[in-house]
């Protein structure tokens, strides 16, 4: 009747049982593990950056224009340009992945067995494939240009990366949709049916509107995961933040003392972007669990 709540037989865990059950429930409805960025992670990053950069600065002594901070300062616009591409890839992959994932998720609750089984297989396949493998596959499978008549349209690598990232996002959003629909109590279906609503009407007017709220936190969670995964594209030569960092380091004669500060700087950028999303996700989650 009421939602099944996992409980524990271990007396020591009973004070935490409710909290643990909520965490499990949240992760299940999110279709995967939950990302938990905390403010202290950012503080650690900041401290690590200052320590690494400070130590390196001390090593090379007071050479003007050669200092770690000065060098980094010069490269920041270049690095941020790379980060913009990370964001563009994340927006594109999220948009495509969400659109396809919504369709696939609805197919997973279809009454037609072939549709249901087919979409389930597709979901499981892309959900359980390593993202990097999917990226390589798309890079190799897609031509680098399309010829339509006389026009030759080149497909840049970053577009292929968008497609590659959208596949696992699609599969995970599919699970989010399926999980949300299944989390609606069966009484909602029953009462809608007894009021002579058709299945389609019940789904679109009664079930899905209730799902939207539940889907937003896991959806944002997947967006943050995706954003943090976008540097994978650097391996394939897409000129995003990590790739440009490598280029910058090479241009600086690969000075080893720059390595840690540059990469820590990158981590800080990613943190500054993802942390507010993680916080907002948690806030929304808390609000929705209280309401329901």
């Amino acid at each position, binding site marked *: 009747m009421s939602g099944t709540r996992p409980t524990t037989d271990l007396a020591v865990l009973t004070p935490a049982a409710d909290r643990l059950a909520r965490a499990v429930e949240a992760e299940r409805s999110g279709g995967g593990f939950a990302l938990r960025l905390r403010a202290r992670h950012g503080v650690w990053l900041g401290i690590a950056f200052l320590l690494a950069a400070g130590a390196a600065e001390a090593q090379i002594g007071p050479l003007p224009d050669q200092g770690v901070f000065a060098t980094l300062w010069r490269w920041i616009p270049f690095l941020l340009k790379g980060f913009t591409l990370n964001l563009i890839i994340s927006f594109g992959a999220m948009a495509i992945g969400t659109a396809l994932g919504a369709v696939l998720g609805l197919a997973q609750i279809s009454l037609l067995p072939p549709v249901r089984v087919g979409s389930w297989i597709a979901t499981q396949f892309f959900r359980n494939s390593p993202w990097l493998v999917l990226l390589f596959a798309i890079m190799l499978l897609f031509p680098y240009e399309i010829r339509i008549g006389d026009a030759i349209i080149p497909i840049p690598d970053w577009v292929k990366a968008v497609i590659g990232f959208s596949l696992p996002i699609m599969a995970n959003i599919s699970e989010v949709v399926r999980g949300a629909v299944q989390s609606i109590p069966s*009484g909602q279906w029953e*009462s809608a049916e007894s*009021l002579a609503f058709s299945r389609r009407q019940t789904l679109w007017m009664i079930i899905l509107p*209730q799902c939207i709220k539940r889907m937003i936190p896991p959806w944002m969670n997947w967006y943050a995961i995706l954003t943090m995964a976008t540097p994978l594209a650097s391996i394939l030569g897409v000129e995003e933040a990590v790739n440009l960092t490598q280029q910058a380091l090479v241009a600086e004669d690969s000075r080893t003392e720059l390595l840690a500060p540059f990469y820590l700087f990158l981590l800080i950028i990613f943190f500054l972007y993802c942390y507010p999303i993680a916080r907002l996700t948690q806030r929304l989650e808390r609000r929705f669990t209280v309401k329901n």
Partner: protein
Amino acid sequence: MGASAGWTADQPIVAIKDVHKSFGALKVLEGVTIDVAKGEVICIIGPSGSGKSTLLRCINALIPIDGGSIKVEGQEVRDPALDKLELRKKVGMVFQQYNLFPHKTALENVMMAPIHVLKQDRIEVETRAYALMAKVRLEGKEGSYPGELSGGQQQRVAIARSLAMNPDIMLFDEVTAALDPETVKEVLVTIRDLAEEGMTCLLVTHEMGFAREIADHIYFTDRGVIVEHGPPATFFTEASDPRTREFLSQIL
């Protein structure tokens, strides 16, 4: 539609005959027969797990039956060509857990089905919905969301929501079982008003006093069969089967 053409009001509005239903190996209904006349109020009582709620769900085809026959206004529920949606427009149902749509206000809950299922005019439906909210004594709560209402209030909205479809028959599935004792009465009063207006009602209930007061006929079920039935005047005093007597002695 055509199948119910032969039905006239002097025949049972719900004719349940030798109905069988199993869930896997579990036999829930093993030959249940009940006739309900138009305007009659039937109470079904019995221990938990005796198949009462399942029986109600078979009447509006929420659950398919395995054997026997259920005719609603002459329309066979088991007929594969049955238009379930047409059947459900005639049969309202209220549930133990209310099952209101939490993302809609009380008034919208009442208005949704007439507008989207019966395709009635919105303005007209709204007028009727306000009247129904008044009928279940919830004036002023039209704009409240289900989460803001007490259990008893939610259940009365659920009754109004069913009535908005202008059903010929109402099914009540333990509608007071989830309520606080102090709110049970307000729901029962609403149901009694309905019964007095001549609505055909089938109730599954544990409220013996209420059943005695409003029922025209009481059925006692146990393990999928009807053990005993009769009008309340005789049922409570002259029950002959030991199972009925034992149940009544526990609950009264």
